[in-house]
């Protein structure tokens, strides 16, 4: 049977192209998601700047903000036998300026010259920095700023502009954007006295790195610190010391899972169609003595050959796709740019396994149908309507629909907030699968409903189209299914993003600030608040420092929320939130304000100590001084200086300003623009820019963008399968079209008829797709908003259904045109 399968494959290359395409892209996407997951699990950030340093002592934990090391430890480490040298290493972001504006390429990391040997960097020109206000630039930085030895470079550090004299230009093997200062300057600019970011250890000759690592770990004896070697060293140099692995795991798990389900669905559909197409061949085989089991094995054999081939060829594509996705994720800020794409054999094996498994399951389903073929059907001149209903099918359909309903209910009632999004993919797929299984029956109803309006509008072509669709109901259902999947998934997944973004922007909606001061060079220093407060027309002022905090008393110690550092006095006038009890003015020192929901859930009352772990891993006990009604994304308010102390940069993302009574927005903006004359990298934005940037929730925007990217990838895949299915379904009707032409139908009449059929197919698909997306979105909207209406612009839906109908129409009509190129007499004569 296997040889027969191979022969058939070779003979019908075209017929298997569809299955091949479905398997090929499915395998590539699944493998790439697997690769991303492994990348996330390994969280490998290979060192670049510290590449020349075998061991690095740094914080053992990865936190959002950088955790630091006591500088005093350097001497103790240097005393350990086998250590040739211990170098304290500091890193601080700075923006080189050219003619007052930041140079292209963004931030540069500043270090002490002592760190230069850790890469190692060597001087190309000039000398090491000597004396205050001198700097050595990396080649790249020198080129970008146009400065060379002897020149003067303006940089913005910590929100302040300073000038340095360039004493040298250095180069290193890897591409780094670094600038080196004297130890004194570096310590001052780093701004954390007594602390360094890491201590680099250079072993003496002949010392085993592994042994030394053990000795050092014992000497340090602090679980907060780790002695890093190999790829782990990268954690000490990456900004924020987080590869972003956890986010990557979650993201790739969600989308990888969805990709697996979509791939199974698409492969099963395509394979089913191609088997159906060979209906008469199957019947003939049955008549001359193939048992149902032999037919099943033949289809399985064919499918596995195609699947193995498709998976093997998908491997190179998966590598490109995985790295490209990772790059996009890094650009969007989900992961660190330093994280390296790591794909071992496990994700590849898993990807191959899943692809083969889904192909096998699909082949089993398709083979079951083929095995049920009655041999007498080979004898029938015209192939009859395929029998579709079976109890097995109904049972599976009901299981899928019940599962989908259960998930919908769970989402609506049990889940809350953005977590609810995690059930959306499975819900949509379960509903889509259930409906797909029942689609021939549903199609009958849809055709019955659309029969009269379609006929009334389209005349003879419509009449023929309706008759055809009714007679070929099972096949029409096969075409409706991918339209349903594409529109249903697109609508569900896109509106899921807009709905959750809508939830997050509740925060921005509340904003009452009239202006915001931001910096072009990364952040705004907190002391700017006092300078703004004195200005004319200024009412309320508050800095906004973004970070996260974890409630240590949370059930799983992983109950995190967005921590916003603010100036208590200015909160009401800028963020537009009012305390329900307590006072925001008390937000000074170690204090916190929580939403009433959160405080209630954790059992805190005013005056209680809230145990928090800040973004850099430091524990802070903050007194609860105010409660407020929270909307959308969960936040907690802390004093700006408290949050800034625990962030990498210590800067505010922006300063929100509200106008005093009687001052217009324009007047306030004019008053604030005075600031920029003295400080050129500051920017003043009006209210509109404030709202569009989403206020404090900047992180949500980038996350959403990445979700769109992944959603887009999966949608592209369903669109391929949509076109695929329609092209096969049309090709199958060669003889039918030929017959119509022989009895006098013109090209135009056939194209019109096919066009009306395509409209029927898209209407059916859109209708079912709407049902699928509604079952996903309504519970989600209910979980987030307590309202059944998902939010988001209407044009997206119009674009989705327009795109789906357009594609359906286009692929049907184009493939019909192609089929019609064969002269009718020839086409009518071709077998099967």
């Amino acid at each position, binding site marked *: 049977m296997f040889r027969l399968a191979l022969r058939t494959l070779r003979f019908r290359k075209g017929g298997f192209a569809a299955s091949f395409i479905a398997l090929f892209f499915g395998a590539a996407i699944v493998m790439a998601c697997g690769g991303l997951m492994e990348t996330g699990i390994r969280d490998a950030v290979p060192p670049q700047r510290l590449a020349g340093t075998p061991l690095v002592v740094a914080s053992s934990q990865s936190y959002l903000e950088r955790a630091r090391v006591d500088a005093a430890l350097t001497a103790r480490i240097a005393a350990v036998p086998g250590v040739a040298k211990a170098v304290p290493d500091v890193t601080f972001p700075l923006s080189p300026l050219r003619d007052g504006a930041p140079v292209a390429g963004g931030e540069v990391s500043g270090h002490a010259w002592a760190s230069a040997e850790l890469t190692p960097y060597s001087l190309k020109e000039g000398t090491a920095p000597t004396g205050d206000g001198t700097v050595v630039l990396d080649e790249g930085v020198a080129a970008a700023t146009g400065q060379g030895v002897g020149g003067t470079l303006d940089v913005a550090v910590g929100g302040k502009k300073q000038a340095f004299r360039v004493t040298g230009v250095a180069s290193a093997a890897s591409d780094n954007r670094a600038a080196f200062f004297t130890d004194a300057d570096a310590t001052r600019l780093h701004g954390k006295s007594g602390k360094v970011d890491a201590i680099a250890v250079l072993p003496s000759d002949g010392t085993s790195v592994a042994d030394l690592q053990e000795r050092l770990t014992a000497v340090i004896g602090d679980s907060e610190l780790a002695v890093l070697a190999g790829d782990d060293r990268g954690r000490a140099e990456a900004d924020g010391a987080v590869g972003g692995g956890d986010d990557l795991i979650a993201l790739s798990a969600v989308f990888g899972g969805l990709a697996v389900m979509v791939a199974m669905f698409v492969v099963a559909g395509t394979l089913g169609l191609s088997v159906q197409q060979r209906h008469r061949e199957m019947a003939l085989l049955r008549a001359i003595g193939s048992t149902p089991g032999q037919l099943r094995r033949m289809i399985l054999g064919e499918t596995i050959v195609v699947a193995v081939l498709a998976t093997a060829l998908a491997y190179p594509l998966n590598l490109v796709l995985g790295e490209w996705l990772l790059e996009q994720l890094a650009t969007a800020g989900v992961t660190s740019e330093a994280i390296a794409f790591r794909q071992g054999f496990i994700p590849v094996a898993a990807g191959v396994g899943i692809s083969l498994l889904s192909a096998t399951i699909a082949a089993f389903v398709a083979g079951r149908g083929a095995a049920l073929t009655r041999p007498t059907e080979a*004898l029938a001149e015209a192939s009859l309507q395929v029998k579709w209903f079976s109890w097995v099918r109904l049972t599976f359909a009901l299981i899928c629909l019940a599962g989908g309903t259960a998930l919908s209910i769970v989402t609506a009632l049990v889940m809350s907030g953005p977590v609810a999004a995690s059930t959306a993919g499975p819900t949509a797929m379960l509903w889509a699968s259930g409906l797909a299984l029942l689609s021939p029956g549903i199609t009958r109803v849809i055709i019955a409903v659309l029969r009269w309006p379609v006929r009334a509008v389209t005349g003879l072509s419509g009449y023929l189209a309706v008759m055809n669709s009714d007679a070929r109901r099972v096949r029409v259902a096969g075409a409706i299914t991918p339209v349903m999947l594409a529109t249903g998934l697109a609508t569900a997944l896109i509106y899921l993003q807009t709905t959750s973004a809508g939830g997050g922007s509740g925060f921005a909606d509340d904003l009452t600030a009239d202006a915001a001061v931001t910096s072009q060079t990364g952040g705004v220093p907190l002391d700017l608040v006092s300078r703004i407060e004195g200005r004319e027309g200024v009412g309320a002022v508050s800095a906004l420092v973004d970070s996260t905090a974890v409630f240590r008393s949370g059930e799983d110690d992983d109950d995190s929320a967005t921590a916003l550092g603010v100036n208590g006095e200015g909160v009401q006038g800028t963020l537009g939130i009012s305390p329900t009890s307590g006072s925001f003015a008390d937000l000074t020192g170690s204090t916190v304000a929580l939403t009433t929901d959160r405080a209630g859930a954790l059992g805190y009352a005013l005056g209680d100590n809230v145990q928090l772990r800040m973004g850099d891993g430091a524990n802070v006990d903050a007194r609860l001084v105010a409660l407020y009604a929270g909307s959308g994304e969960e936040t907690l308010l802390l004093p700006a200086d408290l949050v800034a102390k625990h962030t990498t940069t210590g800067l505010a993302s922006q300063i929100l300003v509200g106008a005093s009574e009687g001052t217009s927005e324009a007047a306030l903006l004019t008053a604030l623009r005075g600031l920029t004359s003295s400080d050129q990298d500051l920017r003043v934005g009006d209210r509109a820019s404030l709202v569009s940037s989403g206020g404090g929730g900047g992180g949500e925007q980038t996350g959403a963008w990445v979700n769109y990217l992944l959603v887009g990838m999966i949608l592209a895949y369903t669109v391929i399968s949509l076109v695929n299915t329609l092209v096969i379904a049309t090709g199958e009707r060669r003889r039918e079209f030929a017959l119509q032409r022989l009895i006098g139908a013109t090209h135009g009449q056939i194209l019109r008829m096919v066009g009306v059929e395509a409209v029927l197919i898209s209407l059916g698909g859109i209708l079912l797709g709407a049902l699928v997306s509604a079952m996903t979105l309504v519970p989600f909207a209910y979980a987030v908003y307590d309202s059944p209406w998902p939010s988001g612009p209407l044009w997206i839906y119009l674009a989705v259904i327009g795109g789906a109908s357009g594609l359906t129409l286009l692929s049907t009509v184009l493939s019909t045109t192609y089929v019609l190129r064969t002269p009718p007499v020839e086409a009518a004569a071709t077998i099967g």
Partner: protein
Amino acid sequence: MDDDVVRLESVRKVYGNDRNGVVALAGVSLGIRRGTFTAVMGPSGSGKSTCLHCAAGLDRPTSGSVVLDGHELTGLNERELTRLRRDRIGFIFQSFNLLPALNVVENVQLPLRLAGRKAKRADVDEVLARVGLSDRKHHRPGELSGGQQQRVAIARALITKPAVIFGDEPTGALDTRTALEVLALMRRAVRDVGQTVVIVTHDPVAASHADRVIFLADGQIAGELQSPTAHAVGERMTQLGAWADEPAGTVN
């Protein structure tokens, strides 16, 4: 009676459910003797194809019994039926007889390979010589004429040395001369090796090659002829109303 290779006993076949079903066979009993050439004739809708399908185990009767080469077919499951068909029956259809992906030799070998048996090269060569296709062994069906394709189908039916060969309008898609060649081939198989052949046809000329013609009308046996002539068959068909609108003379 013991020499009957196929025996139908009060076979009824109803399509659809009992209330508004279509009765295709209304109690047919007949026996086919080993080594004979039988033609089943009847007007459209007389149930002749259904009769063939039931006799060949392709379709299950609603009631009654079918005994094929000493085996009772009723009660066998699909797998057992397939096995029995594969070992004891050869098939020739009106068209689409061959798998387009396989060449002539492979198509002929297929039933044996499906049964997990080795196809002896000599056997294949022999049946292909018998149907006159020794020079077309490696052609694909698409490269053969309609008559050649039917001859491949006969070769495929002969290769398993079946107890019966069933033909469903085997000459229906062929021109007169090619049809005569194909009928002569079947006739020769009956004469030379004692092969049993049963065909369904509506062509009196085709039927006249048979030893015996059985007439069906409205799902029941409406008579039979031994050693028929085309003329006699045509007249009987006219009586059955098959060509009621046409003058009988056109039949010859």
